[in-house]
């Protein structure tokens, strides 16, 4: 099981009357590629943050890769995230003052796995993602948006996570870059047998996924 949420509730602050999320039961099997769609402000990002362990849920069991996040300390969750979960966002996926190689290298320092072959792996990933060698040492702020998003995939995959969480990663891309991005992403995920949870409002992407979920189906909101 990649993700299993049971009785998960979340509300910001002490406003427990207005649950942003209230999930009875939701699960994702290993190897699934799930597209979650829904209107903005519905709590998609919050759901991802709970699954990545960045936000502790107010109530309920959060199990990711058969580990109970809700029973971990904040420190354990940080370590778990570094080791097992890759993330790609809509924007700001890279530290702007570091180059592509250093961004990937930095990500690898947070995982507890060995660092022996990380450099080769980073090179292989950048090659696979069609980033020109001449761009590797450039400050990432000098790269195009399409290049930045592809480097972000390399950064997210460097620690060989079992789960990849993507939050509208294609929203800032034009259609050509978007298709290119998705094709490369799916290829790499397929090779690595990874689970993908992908949030987007763009239903046109549905063909790439094994499962389509509306956020409103996952969460039953009381209002």
């Amino acid at each position: 099981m990649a993700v299993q949420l049971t009785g998960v509730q979340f509300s910001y602050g002490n406003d427990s009357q207005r649950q942003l999320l209230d999930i009875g039961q939701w699960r994702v099997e290993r190897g699934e590629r799930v597209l979650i769609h829904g209107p903005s402000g519905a709590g998609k990002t919050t759901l991802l943050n709970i699954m990545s362990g960045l936000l502790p849920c107010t109530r309920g069991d959060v199990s990711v890769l058969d580990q109970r996040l809700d029973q971990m300390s904040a420190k354990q969750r940080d370590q778990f995230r570094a080791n097992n979960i890759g993330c790609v966002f809509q924007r700001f996926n890279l530290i702007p003052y570091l180059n592509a190689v250093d961004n990937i290298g930095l990500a690898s320092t947070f995982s507890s796995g060995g660092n022996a072959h990380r450099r080769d792996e980073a090179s292989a990933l950048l090659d696979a993602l069609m980033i020109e060698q001449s761009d590797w040492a450039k400050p990432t702020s000098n790269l195009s948006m399409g290049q930045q998003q592809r480097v972000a995939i390399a950064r997210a995959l460097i620690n060989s996570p079992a789960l990849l969480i993507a939050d509208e990663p294609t929203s800032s891309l034009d259609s050509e870059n978007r298709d290119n991005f998705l094709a490369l992403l799916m290829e790499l995920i397929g090779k690595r047998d990874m689970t993908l949870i992908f949030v987007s409002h763009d239903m046109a992407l549905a063909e790439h996924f094994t499962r389509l979920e509306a956020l409103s189906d996952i969460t039953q909101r009381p209002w």
Partner: protein
Amino acid sequence: MFLKVAVKSLLSRKGSAVMTLMAISVAIFVLLGIEQIRQQARDSFASTVSGVDLIVGAKTGSLNLLLYSVFRIGSPTDNISWQAYREIADSDDVAWAIPISLGDSHEGYRVVGTTQAFFEHFSFGKKRRLTFSKGEAFEGTFDAVLGSEVALALGYSVGTEIILAHGLASTSFTKHDNQPFVVVGVLAPTGTPVDQTIHVRLEGIEAMHAGGSAAPIGAFTHASAPTADFSEPESITAFMLGLKSRMSTFNVQRQINQFSGEPLMAILPGVALSELWQMMSMFENVLRLISALVLLAAVLGMGAVLLASIRERRQEIHLLRMMGASPFYLFCLVEMEAMILCLLGMLLGGVSLYAALFMIGDAVFSRFGLYLDATLLTPEAALMLGAVLLATLAAAAAPSLKMYTSARDIS
């Protein structure tokens, strides 16, 4: 990697980083510079006299004796008879003696009557002997040797004739103007009161006083001065002693203090000098306080700049957290940036101070007699730099905590 991230992060904010770095460098420059000057001032003060074992004068306070015999400040309470001087100077324990006779002046500079022994035995600093920048020691009765500052201020050189006045003011009414002295030598700068003194032979002083009251004008010329008549003055003001063995210092001191002929006292110059310096510790502390405040301002400025930067780094914080960085990692990142600024500031401030000392060291020495050496990293300075590092960490705690809470309460 951690270090690289901190460095690159600072580089990405070059403008504010450079300004902060400069503020810290200036503060370090001031801190180390003041410490250096303070220490050197103390050292050169403490070595105004060296190699002299005892200073003897009429019974008075030890600071008073030190002030008038060494610093030419204040006035002696009484004179010492020539017999008493001879008796002590000739005793077995004494290796050499320098008699000093005060009371005359020239253009506000004090005149000291002494003997050849002064140039042979008086030393200052780390056992540095007096040296001549021009001319040589006095030979004749009306020869004069000038301290460097006297020569510089009055524009005198070898061959200049000078008229001495009784008393201290340059407008003194009693001028011994029938007895001109001739400058035969100028001493190299020492950074001690010697620079501000005119040295003549004891006989010169006696002859001048005798000539001023009795002898007709022109009775003595430089060449024909009858030195024999004045070789034994009636009294002198004080004298300095060098002993054959330093072991006997306290013994000789006690003997002099109990001298039966007249009330005398002997002091150890080193002890008296450090007593005098103690009185000036207030001044030292003010200097230190000023440099500490300059530093505090710089460090607080750095804290403010870093704090302002946290607001712009929200997305960076979020990204690092998603990569698995803990809030503590981000806390350390900001502290690290502060440390880098501080260490670079120390380096920059230290190097520029070193360069400054190297360039102006000689000028300072000849002008103020302050002997600045380039050993910056004294144990005290190292301790100070350690304190600076701690102050930096403390000042950076505010932005670091802000970073920590931003990282923890991410949403």
